[in-house]
């Protein structure tokens, strides 16, 4: 409108005036005619750069086998299917397909299968050392799974896990030496030891929270260490207490002994995984998922007795840790003082943090990494601890939740980058963005928005003082082409926020309102200005629409 000087003034004559049409102007100045198709041509023109859009699905989709889709294998006797399968339709071909929603069982099965057949596929040269490390891995992974139950599921930051295992191992070894208990009794007695220690350690957990408890348990660990190392009954001088009954027969061949130890460690790991599944995934675990740290008040208000659930989980895992302690004694014929050392606690924390705290897969994978570094690559000497420390530093500096959090972290990062790229290309009031367009099924909507944007761009070029003046003179009736195009667009607008004229007093008071666009919801008043005539109100409404158009 400011550039009115640059526009050539032209005159429009009402073609209907010849027949004496009522309403409308006879002759008004008008802007020069513009081709309404030009903007369409301009938009279609190829303008680099184009950006890649959409997302690539690497997910494997198996074909659907029609009628048989409901005949799935199920875990007897539950109704649970073997794998979580979902039927989907291919968006392009509309073929029915199946996707596995959760592939973790497949990976668990394959990795456990690999562990199970390990003794048969390892080369002879490394067999002994690797299988020995494998047995240790089984025990440590089970301990860490129980620890994950305590830290992750129950949310009790206890560092006394190895203390429970160690006390159980030492007490059962002592009982085995002095009372001659057979090896299979040791884990059973260990369970009672674990329960007793669990009760003692759980008492302060009810009052203390978070890291106060962590520091206290660190001290308890030290207490156990000092108590055992200075006590004469537990062999103060020999660096450990040995001589318990064991399930490994000395008369067997060395390799048989190693394989028996390996498979016993493997069986312990499987048992610990089942325990984790049945505590973390069942009722008590779900209760505790409602009561994460700092949201306890909400859980309590919802009727969840989270304290009881926490202590229950703590006691269950203490019993399991006691069992592992007894097993440890039967496995090694005893235990060394090392199990109470600060070093062991650091190594254990490294195992659970590298994989990701609170996850079974994280605990097992982290244990595998640390055991391989610590027990297999022995020739690295002290450097292996430096490597472990560096891995820990890397994990806390760069990863959100350990190795198994990488997937989510990567996706979050990718979405963030996408969002940034998207916003850098964003135009106000623009058509749909390419990325959004790929995710919208109704393609008509995309075309409508695209058309609408071009239409608005074109109409903006038509707005000038002439047509406003023309509308002011005669709001109704035949208009010049430019004004007619603008008015058609305004009339065709969506019902929500469409402006209407409200008659307060006929021929005296008119106001402008906006429709809500929702049935049953009343229109709202947009301004307090009162117009004397309906024509003035029409024009005021027209000016408002023009303002909205120019601003959009």
């Amino acid at each position, binding site marked *: 409108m400011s550039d009115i000087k640059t526009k050539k003034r032209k005159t429009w004559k009402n073609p209907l005036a010849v027949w004496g049409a009522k309403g409308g102007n006879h002759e008004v100045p008008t802007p020069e005619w513009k081709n309404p198709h030009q903007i369409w041509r301009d938009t279609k023109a190829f303008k680099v750069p184009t950006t890649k859009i959409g997302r690539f699905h690497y997910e494997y989709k198996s074909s659907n086998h029609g009628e048989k889709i409901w005949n799935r294998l199920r875990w007897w006797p539950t109704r649970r299917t073997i794998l979580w399968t979902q039927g989907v339709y291919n968006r392009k071909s509309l073929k029915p397909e199946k996707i596995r929603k959760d592939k973790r069982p497949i990976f668990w099965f394959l990795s456990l299968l690999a562990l199970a057949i390990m003794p048969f596929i390892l080369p002879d040269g490394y067999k002994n050392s690797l299988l020995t490390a494998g047995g240790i891995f089984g025990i440590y992974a089970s301990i860490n799974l129980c620890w994950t139950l305590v830290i992750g599921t129950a949310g009790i930051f206890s560092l006394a896990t190895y203390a429970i295992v160690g006390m159980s191992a030492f007490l059962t070894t002592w009982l085995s030496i002095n009372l001659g208990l057979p090896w299979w009794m040791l884990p059973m007695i260990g369970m009672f030891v674990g329960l007793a220690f669990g009760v003692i350690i759980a008492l302060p957990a009810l009052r203390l*929270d978070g890291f106060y408890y962590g520091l*206290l348990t*660190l001290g308890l660990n030290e207490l156990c260490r000092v108590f055992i190392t200075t006590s004469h009954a537990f062999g103060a001088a020999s660096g450990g207490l040995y001589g318990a009954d064991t399930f490994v027969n000395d008369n067997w061949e060395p390799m048989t002994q190693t394989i028996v130890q390996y498979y016993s460690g493997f069986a312990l790991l499987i048992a610990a995984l089942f325990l984790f599944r049945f505590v973390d995934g069942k009722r008590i675990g779900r209760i505790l998922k409602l009561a994460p740290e700092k949201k306890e008040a909400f859980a309590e208000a919802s009727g969840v007795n989270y304290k009881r659930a926490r202590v229950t989980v703590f006691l269950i895992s203490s019993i399991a840790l006691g069992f592992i302690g007894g097993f440890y004694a039967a496995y090694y014929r005893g235990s060394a003082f090392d199990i109470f050392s600060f070093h062991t606690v650091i190594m254990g924390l490294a195992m659970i943090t590298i994989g990701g705290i609170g996850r079974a897969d994280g605990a097992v994978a982290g244990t595998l990494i640390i055991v391989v570094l610590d027990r297999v690559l022995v020739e690295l000497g002290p450097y292996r601890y430096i490597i472990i*420390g560096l891995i820990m530093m890397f994990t806390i500096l760069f990863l959100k939740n350990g190795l198994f959090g990488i997937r989510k972290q990567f996706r979050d990062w990718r979405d963030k980058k996408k969002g940034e790229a998207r916003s850098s290309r964003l135009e106000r009031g623009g058509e749909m963005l390419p990325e959004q367009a790929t995710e919208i099924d109704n393609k008509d909507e995309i075309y409508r928005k695209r058309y609408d944007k071009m239409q608005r761009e074109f109409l903006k070029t038509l707005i000038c003082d002439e047509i406003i003046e023309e509308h002011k003179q005669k709001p109704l009736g035949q208009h010049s082409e430019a004004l007619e195009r603008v008015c058609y667009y305004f009339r065709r607008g969506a019902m929500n926020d469409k402006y209407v004229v409200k008659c307060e007093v006929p021929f005296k008071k008119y106001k402008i309102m906006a429709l809500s666009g929702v049935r049953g919801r009343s229109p709202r008043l947009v301004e307090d200005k009162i117009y004397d005539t309906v024509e003035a109100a029409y024009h005021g409404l027209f000016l408002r629409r023009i303002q909205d158009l120019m601003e959009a």
Partner: protein
Amino acid sequence: MNDIIFLIINGITVASIYGLIAVAVSITWSALGLLNLSYGFIFSFAGYGAWLAERHIYGEPIFVMFMGIAAGIIGGIMVCLIVFIPVHDKPNFTIRGMIGTLAVSLIGGQILLQNFGPKAKLLPEFFGYGKIKILDVTLTADKIGIICSSILMLTIVVKWMKSSRRGLEIRAMMMNPHAASIVGIGVRKTGIYVMAVTGAMTGLSAALLSQTYYLSPFSGLTPMIKGVSIALMGGLGSVRGAVIAAIILGFNEALTTKFLGGRYVLMTQFALIIIVLIIRPRGIAGILDKAREA
């Protein structure tokens, strides 16, 4: 009677050394929200720094002591740069920071072991071999020196925190870290001051303890665990509480050694700590309801 006084003085001597570490742990936790479990490493680092200074620079005991403090400051700043500054704005900072400091102590301990070997080292006696007799009780210069220098260090730190600009910043961080950062107190800068001061305290305790006992790559673990226990009992974040707890535990140590035997010291100590914590979950002088939310 003499025995008991002797033991109590022993207890106070030990408590004043562990109390330094306890106050360090306490200040770090309350000002930075960092559970620094690498004080064991800083302790050994400072001890070796003092030992190197004694061997290679100058053997004067007081100089060696100050070099130990300086090495402690360097160790503290190192931990701050490696762990606190990169991690302090990440989610789950407390647990990350704790694991980070553990990783530092693992790596650092191994590096010390590589460079100095497992053989124990001994620092010279800083305070000579003099003795004073007060009311039938013999006080060695060593003990008086340890107690006096710890109290001096603690007084300097408390004064500094009460009267200086930096101390004001640190106290602001202790009260409310968010508000402190809003009014323009830099978290990173304050982190370096805090870690330097607490490093100095650890350095002094390392120098004092290594002249009485010995110095090895992992000799800092026990003092650290004791310091953490004292800080826990006194209430994390409270200097006053840490001092009270150190004195109580020192007495406890003396009395247990006298009546039950040295083996039971840790047991009675933890029984005491657990009882105190069950009665007051935030320690003797800790504020009951408000925990620091990092």
